[in-house]
């Protein structure tokens, strides 16, 4: 630029992105379904005893990676209050916290699953699930040009090309020969999945567990923004706890001394029966284009701490599928 050039900028032409406080790791201490949530203190104590050693290993891993610096690690639990209503918060939350403490674990944050489907307090009042849906860019099968309209309003998302026979019109005389479905990124053989994002069983749109869990992962990674503002912000634990779940904020901070909820990476320690759901979550997240400005903001923060950002969003997400005791009510959907 020469000395004669003036610089002119208008604030609204540039995008401000609110920064999230960030931990190194967000550890999900199990994922409970409704049937498990009615269990006794001993059930939860057993669950936490089984996973505590894995949580400790994750902590040790980050301590080693950071070579002397203190790892910032927060823990969280997601309560399914979307598909059914569990025992009232005043009863359940203290029970979970005490059970975790009995195994030497501290629950830092408790989130409501319906918080991923409810309107947030953000400027556009979009739900996290809607923010995710708006950012889906479908994985195109070979032969796809810009002529294909995006996400048909079917509520399904897959990772390849569907088998054509399912769409054969009844009136056609010559039957279309069956062709197998194909995964786009297959290595030799396909693992094709077709994921239901929502249905209308209850009249209104009802999000699937996989879609809500995808929103949950992105919230934990601090990747969702509503017009640049954080979509969900942790709220202090209300005192006293309300009797109804819908009167509880979407995300509450149980431990006042906790490290930040959002983190560079997530780790979910869950039972193997949750594997199909998590595969669906990963498939959804592989097709989410997060705001490049949000991504670069987080990557810059990582580099500032001399941590290499992973090349792809899904590589920020880790799982441990371990025996967490009896899991009732887990399954796909």
């Amino acid at each position, binding site marked *: *630029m020469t000395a004669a*050039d003036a610089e*002119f900028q*208008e604030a*609204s*032409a*540039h*995008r401000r992105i609110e920064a999230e406080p960030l931990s190194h790791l967000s550890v999900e201490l199990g994922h409970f379904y409704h049937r498990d949530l009615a269990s006794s203190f001993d059930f939860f104590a057993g669950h936490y005893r089984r996973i505590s050693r894995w949580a400790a290993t994750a902590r040790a891993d980050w301590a080693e990676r950071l070579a002397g610096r203190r790892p910032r690690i927060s823990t969280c639990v997601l309560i399914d209050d979307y598909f059914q209503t569990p025992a009232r918060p005043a009863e359940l939350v203290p029970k979970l916290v005490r059970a975790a403490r009995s195994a030497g674990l501290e629950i830092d944050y408790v989130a409501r699953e319906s918080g991923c489907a409810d309107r947030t307090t*953000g400027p*556009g009042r*979009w739900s996290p699930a*809607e*923010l995710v849906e*708006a*950012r889906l*860019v*479908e*994985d*195109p*099968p*070979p*032969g*796809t*040009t*810009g*002529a*294909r*309209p*995006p996400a048909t309003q079917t509520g399904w998302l897959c*990772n390849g090309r569907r088998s054509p026979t399912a769409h054969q019109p009844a009136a056609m005389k010559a039957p279309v020969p069956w062709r197998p479905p194909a995964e*786009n*990124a297959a290595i030799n053989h396909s693992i094709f999945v077709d994921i239901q994002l929502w249905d209308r069983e209850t009249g209104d749109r009802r999000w699937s567990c996989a879609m809500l869990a995808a929103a949950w992962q992105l919230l934990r990674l601090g990747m*969702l*923004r*509503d*017009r*640049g503002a954080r*979509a969900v912000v942790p709220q202090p634990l209300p005192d006293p706890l309300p009797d109804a779940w819908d009167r509880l904020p979407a995300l509450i901070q149980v431990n006042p001394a906790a490290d930040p909820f959002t983190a560079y990476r997530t780790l979910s320690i869950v039972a193997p029966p949750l594997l199909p759901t998590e595969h669906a979550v990963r498939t959804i*997240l*592989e*097709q*989410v*284009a997060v*705001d*490049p400005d949000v*991504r670069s903001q987080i990557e810059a923060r990582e580099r500032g701490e001399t941590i290499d950002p992973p*090349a*792809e*969003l*899904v*590589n920020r997400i880790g799982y441990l599928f371990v025996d967490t005791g009896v899991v009732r009510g887990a399954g796909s959907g």
Partner: protein
Amino acid sequence: MLVLGEVQTAMLMHAEAASPPLAEQVLALVCGERVRTSHRPIGYAASPETYTGVDCPIPLRSGGTLRGVGTLAGRGTLTGGRVLQGSVTARITRSPDGRRRPWSHYLSHPGVVETIGRVDPAGIAEAHLLTEPASSTLEMGAVCRRLLVRVQQSPHLNQKSPFVAHRTTLRWAAETGTGPDDERVRFTVEDDGVRTLRLVIGAAEACDVIAVCEDVALHDWLLTVLLATVERSRIGAGEPAGVVDRLRPAVDHILHLWMPAARLNRDVMGVWERLERRPGLSRQWDNEVRRVRDQIATAAVLLNLRRAGEGGVATLDGSR
């Protein structure tokens, strides 16, 4: 860097120029994302980027094809609350490992299409500009049309166009990073409202290249609409009052929108400088604007003379 793009430009289907809040409403194409707006030197609003996944052959000038995988970036823009553009682009790069990668890789580089196989930038660029109007490379035109339709069908618009203005299509290809002696700008007006723009320029960011192409498309559309309006006005053949009536929409809605390179970065200003030398878009625009104003001035004088002839006393300055 090789960037391909297509811009379709049309009149916003609304009787009045859209106010800044209305522009924001109609361009809010992605929930949770902001519409970018600026008011100087001219009202301008751009929708958030939308992405479309593609995995298809990319034609080469030689007749062959390359496989391209990635995403097209698209956005809608509104200038002066009046001129709507659907703009779709792809930065073309070579896939480092010669195979299709997991989709999440492509979403980490939105707006990039990776070719599997050797990249031939000039061959891809020329083929992009040669393709039929109905089937552009990667079907960018279909994405442009969907963007325009989404905005035009917004319930916030009254669907009334102030006058007839046909949509134009600018298909463009830009190679950047060339030396100053090799810089080239080629602008071609084809049939059926299609134009092509080929740029070979020095170092420039993709966003600035896209901005200059959208700016050329905007001004070419303004000029096209003005020329068509002047032609329809039947200057020299019709009644002066009728001629002025037919010219008026242009005066009311588009004459103030001519502002080439108003929002451009220095790196791409050279493109406009070359276009102004030849074909000289501003020269032609100024000429037509002068013609419109002369017609209006003449009609005003004639009207005054007629009134004077009907019994009034006309003075030299036209007052009575």
